[in-house]
Each structure stands twice: as structure tokens, then as C-alpha cells.
């Protein structure tokens, strides 16, 4: 997509921003999401358009259902999430394929090959054939801007949700895109249609027949759509590819022929076969799972593909030559600096208490997951959103006397922690849950959530009281404490761990990126310091170990939280006079 140097309004947009801009121009009415790297910026951008009804939903299942409801009611709607977020929305997604839509509905999902910030590298392309939905895959922000408009058109033409799949590199890289004006889409009338929207067995059976026919129609579209493009180059070498690897191959093999798939499911079998006949050497290059590769081979077409070691991690430009040769991937150690909790982070107080008490911590997804990193090393399981409370229960059923603590954040608790807490009460479990309430959804960039009483546009709304919810769920003890009261917190944790009760401690103190106030740094007495190193175990970036094991405090970074002061057994670190 060449951007010409003529008069057209250009903006430097990321893939996420381009999706939002394109959807807005396509007359989008409603957009719902839960924050998740690398998709978060889609709703953040959409919230900037006043004619879009944009929301942070409680979780991805809710987001999907609200958006789908609006589409059925007649307004174009969009859902956005990361790959593991889609897992939460799989229930409505699978059956949305059956109900179909009314106005267009697009589910934008961002995979994270290479794990910029995720628990796994699942390949969402599998959902296409699984849910029998068309899949669109832009390979750049400029394509994302164009493809999202096409997605809404396809959704309405074929009465189907459309899966719009990006990866981190496409979602977060930027490109100059020529943008346009909003085309207001008229609302589609909602007509009562019980066999279409109510999926009882008799209706679902009939709809299944519709879906199978729809797939054939979509396969016919796949053959003719310009989204699947043959670029005729040399007859010696041809690549079948989709997504970001296309860009790297174009620079590594500029003379080759290409079949670039942008409408990646259903497949354009005839086009694939035609392309295969155009070139002597055929290579399939895709990131993560061998999906296109196995399909091409199932057509009886001989094609080379990457060594299986390249199914792991992100594909980079420098990999293209190795992939072409069929070489194994060389794993290089990462030299990047590790992320750590910010100086002054309230979570550090809680984890220092848990570490001191030698607790086994069932953790969850958020900034606090960083407590697993050495030297803190005080978070022992982390699976998925809300799994802290539930894995805590699972552990206690086997180790009833263990010092097991479930730890999660405010946004995570509202997302999917409440059901686990009700389960623990209902199934008569005793134990301790700590909710780290730092008044924000921090790790994804500080978004608002229901426990803050502020919407995505910072409008005031009812504030969900976490402690009231815990009490209503039936927890035996619910305490709210400022984690900076270290000795009080320690005493309370000990007390609750010893109790025959299900207790919740809400550790409430704002995130340091929300409350940026800093107090003066501690005084350090070099002579009193016994170089025991206990302060360094807190892994605070402001504390630097000198060559002889003493302490150097980085004044620019220190937030003046005095956790190191309260941790020092030798009185070498003191609150300033």
C-alpha cells in the first residue's frame, strides 16, 4: 500500500489505532473490551471518538456479549481482546457463529508471539475452522485500516461474526496511513426472529446447516477477494504467507513470487493450487502453528516449510534466510533488562510480608506477577485471570494446613475472582485471599475499572465496593488495610493464616503511577550497615549494591516508601529527620 506524497490527510497509526480509525469511519456504534496487551489501545483510541459508545467491560465474555447484543439490535459493533482474553469469550463466540448478526460484528483478537506480555503463545487462527468463522489477517497498520472496513461488510453480507486477527508486531508497529471521514451507518431494523437468535437444540440444528452452506460461500469469496493476493515475481521461488512474515520475506527475497493471504479462512484452495503451479520451489512461511502449511499439504501440494523449532516465539527479519534453508532455530539468551515493580510500589510491602511468613502464593495476572522474579520469588503459581483464588482452594484441599495465600489485584478480582470466592464459601473452604487494591488496572497502562467508579472516558459512575462484595459472598473476615502499615499487615496475615476461617485482606494503596507523590529518600548509615543484603531482596530499582555490598540509593528513582527502612535489621537505613 503505497502512500503517495500528495494531499491526503496522513496519520502515523499503530495497527490498533488503525483498526479503531477504520472502524469509526465504517460507522461503528458500540465497542467493548477488557484491557489486554497488545489490544488495549483499540478501545483507548475508540473512546476518543464521541460518536462511539465505548466501554471497558468487566471481562471479555461480558464484552463480547454486550457488543454482539448491539449488533443484533442493529448497530455495527466491535469486540477487542488479546488471545487469552478470547478464551474467556469462547462461550458466546462459538454460538454467535450460529445466531449470526444483524448489523456487522467484528471480533478483533491480538495474538502475542514472542510473549511481549502474556501467559502463552496460542495461535488464534485455529478458532476460524473451530467456530466456522471467516478470519481476516492484516500484515500492517495500513492493511488493518482497510481490512476492518471490509470485515464489517463481510459480516453483514454473510450474516456472520468476523474474526480479525493481528499479532503484537502488527498491533504495535506504526505506519503512515491516509485517513478519511466517518460514514454514518444507518441502524438496521431489529426483526423478531426466534429461530435465528434462540439457540435451543431444534434451532441450533437448523442453523448448523446454514453455517455449513455459509462456509462454502465464504470459500468462494476467498478465491476472488483482493485480500488474497498473488504477486507474480520469479518463477523459481514462491512463498505462501500471511501476517507480518510477509513483510520480512519481501525484503529478504524481493524477486520472489508471493501468495499473500489476508482472508486466511476459509482457504482459497484453487488460488493456492494455481500459485503452486506458477513456481518451481514453494515455501510456506507462517508464525507460530503450521496451519497454512498443513492445509497446503492436505491439498496434495508439495511445499517446504519452516523447521518445527520456529513454531516457538516471534519470527524476525533475520530468521527468513534460516527458515528458507530449513535450518533449526538458534535460541539466544535474552540480554534485556528485566521489568520489576516500580520504586514505592505498594505490592512490594505485601510480598515482603508473605516472603517473611514463607507463604505459598497462588498468584494472578497483573503487575504483582512480577513478584515471582528473583530475588523476591514470592509468587508460586500463575495460570490465568482469577486463578489465584481457585488454585488457592485447590491447594488447600490437598494441603489443609499449608500456609497458602491467593493474591490478586482489584481489576482481576472484578474480572473473574468473585466466582472463585463464592465457590470457596459455598464449598466450605478456609484460607486467605489478599486483594491488592491499587485503584487502577496497572500492568496494561493504568485503565479504569468498576472498583474505581470511573468509566473509560473518566465519567463518574457507581463505585463497586470490593470489601462489600467479599462480605456479600460470605467471607468470614474482610479487612481493609494500608499495606504500608507493615507490622500491622504482618500481624494480620499471621492471624488469618492460623484461623479456621475464609478471610480476605484488601491491601489498599494507590499505584505509584497514579499517586506520583514522592517523599525524601532514607538516610543511610554506612557504618551500621552489616551488608546482610536483606534490603536488596526487595528488588527495588532505587537500591543499588556497591562493589563492597553496601547500599547506594538512586535519588532520582527513590519514591520514599521506606520499606527498606522497615526491612533493615541494623538501623542502617532510617527515615530522614
Amino acid at each position, binding site marked *: 500500500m*503505497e502512500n503517495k506524497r500528495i494531499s491526503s490527510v496522513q496519520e502515523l497509526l499503530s495497527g490498533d489505532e488503525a483498526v479503531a480509525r477504520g472502524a469509526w469511519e465504517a460507522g461503528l456504534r458500540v465497542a467493548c473490551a477488557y484491557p489486554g496487551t497488545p489490544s488495549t489501545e483499540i478501545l483507548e483510541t475508540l473512546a476518543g471518538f464521541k460518536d462511539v459508545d465505548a466501554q471497558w467491560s468487566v471481562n471479555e465474555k461480558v464484552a463480547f456479549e454486550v457488543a454482539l447484543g448491539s449488533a443484533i439490535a442493529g448497530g455495527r459493533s466491535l469486540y477487542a481482546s488479546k488471545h487469552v482474553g478470547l478464551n474467556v469469550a469462547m462461550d458466546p463466540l462459538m454460538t454467535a457463529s450460529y445466531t449470526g448478526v444483524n448489523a456487522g460484528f467484528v471480533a478483533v483478537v491480538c495474538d502475542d508471539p514472542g510473549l511481549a506480555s502474556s501467559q502463552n503463545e496460542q495461535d488464534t487462527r485455529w478458532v476460524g475452522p473451530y467456530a466456522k468463522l471467516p478470519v481476516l489477517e492484516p500484515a500492517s497498520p495500513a492493511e488493518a485500516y482497510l481490512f476492518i472496513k471490509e470485515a464489517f461488510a463481510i459480516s453483514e453480507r454473510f450474516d456472520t461474526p468476523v474474526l480479525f486477527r493481528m499479532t503484537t508486531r502488527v498491533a504495535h*508497529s506504526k*505506519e503512515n496511513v491516509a485517513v478519511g471521514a466517518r460514514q454514518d451507518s444507518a441502524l438496521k431494523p431489529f426483526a423478531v426472529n426466534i429461530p435465528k437468535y434462540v439457540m435451543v437444540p431444534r434451532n441450533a440444528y437448523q442453523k448448523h446447516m446454514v453455517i455449513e452452506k455459509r462456509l462454502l460461500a465464504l470459500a468462494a469469496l476467498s478465491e476472488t477477494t483482493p485480500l488474497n493476493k498473488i504477486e507474480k515475481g520469479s518463477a523459481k521461488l514462491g512463498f505462501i504467507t500471511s501476517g507480518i512474515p510477509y513483510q*520480512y520475506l*519481501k525484503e529478504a527475497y524481493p524477486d520472489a513470487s508471493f501468495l499473500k493471504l489476508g482472508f486466511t479462512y476459509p482457504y482459497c484452495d484453487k488460488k493456492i493450487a494455481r500459485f503452486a503451479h506458477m513456481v518451481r520451489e514453494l515455501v510456506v512461511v507462517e508464525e507460530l502453528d503450521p496451519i497454512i502449511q498443513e492445509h497446503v499439504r492436505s491439498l496434495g501440494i508439495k511445499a517446504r516449510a519452516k523447521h518445527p523449532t520456529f513454531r516457538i516465539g516471534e519470527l524476525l*527479519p533475520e530468521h527468513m534466510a534460516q527458515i528458507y534453508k530449513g535450518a533449526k532455530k538458534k535460541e539466544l539468551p535474552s*540480554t534485556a*533488562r528485566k521489568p520489576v515493580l516500580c520504586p514505592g510500589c505498594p505490592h512490594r510491602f505485601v510480598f515482603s510480608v508473605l516472603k517473611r511468613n514463607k507463604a505459598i502464593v497462588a498468584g494472578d495476572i497483573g503487575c504483582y506477577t512480577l513478584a515471582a522474579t528473583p530475588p523476591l520469588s514470592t509468587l508460586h503459581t500463575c495460570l490465568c485471570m482469577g486463578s489465584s483464588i481457585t488454585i488457592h482452594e485447590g491447594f488447600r484441599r490437598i494441603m489443609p494446613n499449608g500456609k497458602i495465600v491467593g493474591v490478586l489485584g482489584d481489576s482481576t478480582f472484578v474480572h473473574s475472582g468473585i466466582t472463585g470466592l463464592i465457590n470457596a464459601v459455598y464449598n466450605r473452604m478456609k484460607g486467605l485471599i489478599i486483594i491488592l487494591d491499587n485503584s487502577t488496572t496497572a*500492568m496494561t497502562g493504568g485503565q479504569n475499572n468498576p472498583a474505581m467508579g470511573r468509566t473509560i472516558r473518566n465519567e463518574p459512575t457507581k463505585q463497586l465496593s470490593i470489601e462489600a462484595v467479599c462480605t456479600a459472598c460470605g467471607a468470614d473476615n474482610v479487612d481493609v488495610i494500608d499495606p504500608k502499615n507493615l507490622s500491622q499487615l504482618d500481624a494480620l496475615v499471621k492471624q488469618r493464616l492460623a484461623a479456621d476461617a475464609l478471610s480476605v485482606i484488601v491491601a489498599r494503596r494507590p499505584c505509584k503511577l497514579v499517586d506520583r507523590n514522592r517523599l525524601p529518600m532514607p538516610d543511610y548509615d554506612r557504618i551500621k550497615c552489616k551488608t546482610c543484603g536483606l534490603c536488596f531482596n526487595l528488588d527495588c530499582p532505587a537500591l543499588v549494591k556497591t562493589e563492597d555490598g553496601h547500599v547506594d540509593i538512586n535519588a532520582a528513582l527513590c519514591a520514599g516508601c521506606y520499606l527498606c527502612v522497615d526491612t533493615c535489621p541494623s538501623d542502617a537505613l532510617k527515615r530522614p529527620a
Partner: protein
Amino acid sequence: MMKKKSSFTSLSVNRIWNVFFCGTGGQGVLTAAEICAVAAMNAGYHVKKSEVHGMAQRGGSVESHVRFGPRIFSPLIKPGTADFIVCFHEGEGNRLAAYLRKGGTTFVPFLKDPAFLPQDRRFLNTAFLGILSALAPIAEESWLAALSQQLKRSLVENQAAFALGRKAGFAYAGRTGGR
């Protein structure tokens, strides 16, 4: 000694330029890269930029690749092809030195040379953009438009730091023969 000014022949606008920005969280790496990308866009190039989000606030490494030219495919710079490594942290600049192409310019020495550093270290990133502006084929007005578009605070101080950096950059280009 023959002094050559940086000359931007028609050849230089027809190839791809690769600018590698790096540093640690809080140094303004992404802002600097954004200004560079917007400047290139203003100058009429096709631009692609890649960046890593999120870990910056938590003290992690920050990298951003900016590529501009007539037609860009990859948003990532291949190791050994960067024309410039614009780094705000010496350790990061050294760690990522393999990205520099033979004959490319790394800004690591500038971090240690007072002739290239602004008086107020908060404006290090705009000063370095000034240096870059003397070495890359993007017209000054494109840079200045990008600065005022991207910077909401301290625009005047940033413009001044940029101007001084640009002057230092031209002096450097003169000493090293320009591009």
C-alpha cells in the same frame, strides 16, 4: 582539511533509512522515535516504526525502530543495518551495538561528550534528535513541525535543545565527511 557538508543527493531519498532508538524506561525513547517518524512522514516518506510497550514504566529496556524511504515493508531493523543508533543509555547502546551497519553512526560517544549534551539533561532526547537532523535526509521544517505536533510542554526549551543539537550534528558531519 576538506570539509564536506552533509549532502542529501537524490540517491539518499530513494533508499531505506534505519534509525534505532534505545534506552531505559523514562528517558523519552518512544517520544523521540515518534518525533522522528512524524518528521519523516511530514517529509513525504513511507514510514514504519516498531516499539515495545509497557515495560518502560517498570525500568525495562526500551527500543524503537524507525524506518523511512520510498516503500517500507518490515517495521523491524535487521541487525547490522541501522544507519544510526540513537541511545540515551550507554549500557543499552552497547548491548545493542550489533544493530549498527558498517559505517553507521552510534550516539554512544555523544553521551560522554559535553559538546553534544544539552545543559538540562531532561532535553537529551530532543538534543539528540537535533544531531540526527543534521545527518539524515529530512528537511528542518519537517522536524520542527513534528516537534510542535508531539510536544505539549516546554516546546521552546525543546526547540532550543534541538537547534543546538543540530548545530553540533553539522559540526560532526563536517569532521567525518557527511553522508
